């Protein structure tokens, strides 16, 4: 390290201190000079006493000599005073100028010091703070370039290494996921297909056959759903999620999703309410109709699964956004679960009589699709009434 940060700072502070000391000394010198001049004045008195003691003369002459001497002394004192005064003024002026010059110099050096410190300390810190902020927000991060020849340079180089490593791990993770799902696809297709065909070959299965066949069938179905969800999720994660947005009336995917789930609702004895054809004016948004249908299907399917008696789907037109409400009157979402609901693989309280179907990926896919449209999705309770509310907000572009 040529000039470590510590040394640079010490240098800057040292220069300032030196400056102040120097200033002080100079000022002190000036004042001392003035002081000296006045001291000279005092010393004049001494020769006068010496002179009169050494002369042996008569009283009158003494008086005349005395008065003449006094006169001379007075004149001398006066002229000394004058010159001393002038010297003092000059010195004071000079000192004043020196002090001003030094103050000015001090300000300039101070400004330089501040600039120096800012550049070598504050700026690198700023760069690192904004770079780490970008990493945490998941934005693409450029390398931090600091070449100051000190600890900040080391820090920046370490940071860059960490970012590179993180990117490598991310890629490894998604490559792995990709490969795993790739390998799983074919065997799952074969197993699921084969068990369906097997069921078809057994006209009257005995109890055990029916039971085991049922187990394989359900597991195969779960595997298929899981694979499908993973495929979707990877599309979302890799940012390779290509939406095909078109101007569509939002009611279309909503109705389509609800209609396809109507039989399921009926099976479970749940009343499913959704906007009918003539009920509301169309709200045209720029959306990927299939994906939005996937979103609504997911939310409504969940609602049906948990509802006690009723599921209501409403579309609300507001000035800046369009809202889609999916409400059920089931047990609702636990307060503690609310913030984590849309996390990958999160599965909250399951109903005891449900098959544990669902991979826990559904809501994170919903969130991904909605957010890709520039919208938001939220889960809330119903304020005292039992059940859960899910609201999807989609922006309207004016």
């Amino acid at each position: 390290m040529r000039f470590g940060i510590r040394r640079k700072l010490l240098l800057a502070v040292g220069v300032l201190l030196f400056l102040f000391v120097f200033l002080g000394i100079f000022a002190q010198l000036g004042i001392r000079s003035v002081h000296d001049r006045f001291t000279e004045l005092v010393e004049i008195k001494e020769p006068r006493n010496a002179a009169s003691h050494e002369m042996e003369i008569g009283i009158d002459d003494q008086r005349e000599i005395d008065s003449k001497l006094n006169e001379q002394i007075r004149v001398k004192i006066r002229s000394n005073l004058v010159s001393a005064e002038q010297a003092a003024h000059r010195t004071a002026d000079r000192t004043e100028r020196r002090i001003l010059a030094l103050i000015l110099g001090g300000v300039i050096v101070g400004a330089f010091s501040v600039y120096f410190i800012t550049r070598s300390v504050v700026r690198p810190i700023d760069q690192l703070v904004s770079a780490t902020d970008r990493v945490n927000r998941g934005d693409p991060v450029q390398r931090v370039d600091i070449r100051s020849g000190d600890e900040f340079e080391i820090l920046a180089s370490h940071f860059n290494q960490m970012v590179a490593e993180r990117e490598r791990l991310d890629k490894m993770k998604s490559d792995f996921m990709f490969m795993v799902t790739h390998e799983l696809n074919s065997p799952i297709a074969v197993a699921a297909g084969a068990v369906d065909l097997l069921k078809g070959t057994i006209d009257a299965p005995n109890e055990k056959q029916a039971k085991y066949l049922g187990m394989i069938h359900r597991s195969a179905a779960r595997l298929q759903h899981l694979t499908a969800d993973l495929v979707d999720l990877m599309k979302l994660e890799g940012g390779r999620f290509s939406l095909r947005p078109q101007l569509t009336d939002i009611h279309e995917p909503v109705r389509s999703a609800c209609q396809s789930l109507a039989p399921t609702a009926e099976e479970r004895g749940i009343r499913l309410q959704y906007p009918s054809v003539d009920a509301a004016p169309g709200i045209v948004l720029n959306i990927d109709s299939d994906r939005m249908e996937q979103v609504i299907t997911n939310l409504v399917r969940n609602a049906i699964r948990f509802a006690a008696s009723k599921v209501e789907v409403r579309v609300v037109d507001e000035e800046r956004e369009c809202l889609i409400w999916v409400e059920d009157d089931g047990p609702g979402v636990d307060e503690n679960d609310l913030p984590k609901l849309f996390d990958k693989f999160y599965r909250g309280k399951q109903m005891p009589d449900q098959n544990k179907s669902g991979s826990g990926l559904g809501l994170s896919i919903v969130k991904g699709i909605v957010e890709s449209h520039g919208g938001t999705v939220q889960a809330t309770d119903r304020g005292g009434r039992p059940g859960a509310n899910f609201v999807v907000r989609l922006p309207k572009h004016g």
Partner: protein
Amino acid sequence: MAKKRILIIDDEQDLIDVLKGRLEEAGYEADGETTPVKGQWSTTRNRPDLIVLDINMPGWLSGLDFIVSLAHIPTLTGLPILIYTSQQSPDVRDRALAAGAIDLFIKGAEDRALMDKIKLLLSEKES
């Protein structure tokens, strides 16, 4: 009215068998070949109504090349081809469609969608 015939081209015999079983249950006739070359031969010998094709098969003729090769045979124009693969990248889908396939379905994840599409395409052909 003769049953519609579907040709399956996939290097995994198991997959061919399962798909064949499913399609026959749905009322179609189905045959399978394990390489595109054999598939080509089968197609020219006995024209199917639809082809389900895997695309990463070993051998010198890739699945996509196969589609292109069919385009050169006049008796086979208008033959719908659906890709059924374990590959998930979106650019694979784009390339397949560019080569002339009608759609792409992912094995294990989009099985039902594949069946639905087959039914849709083959019922359209009747009208």
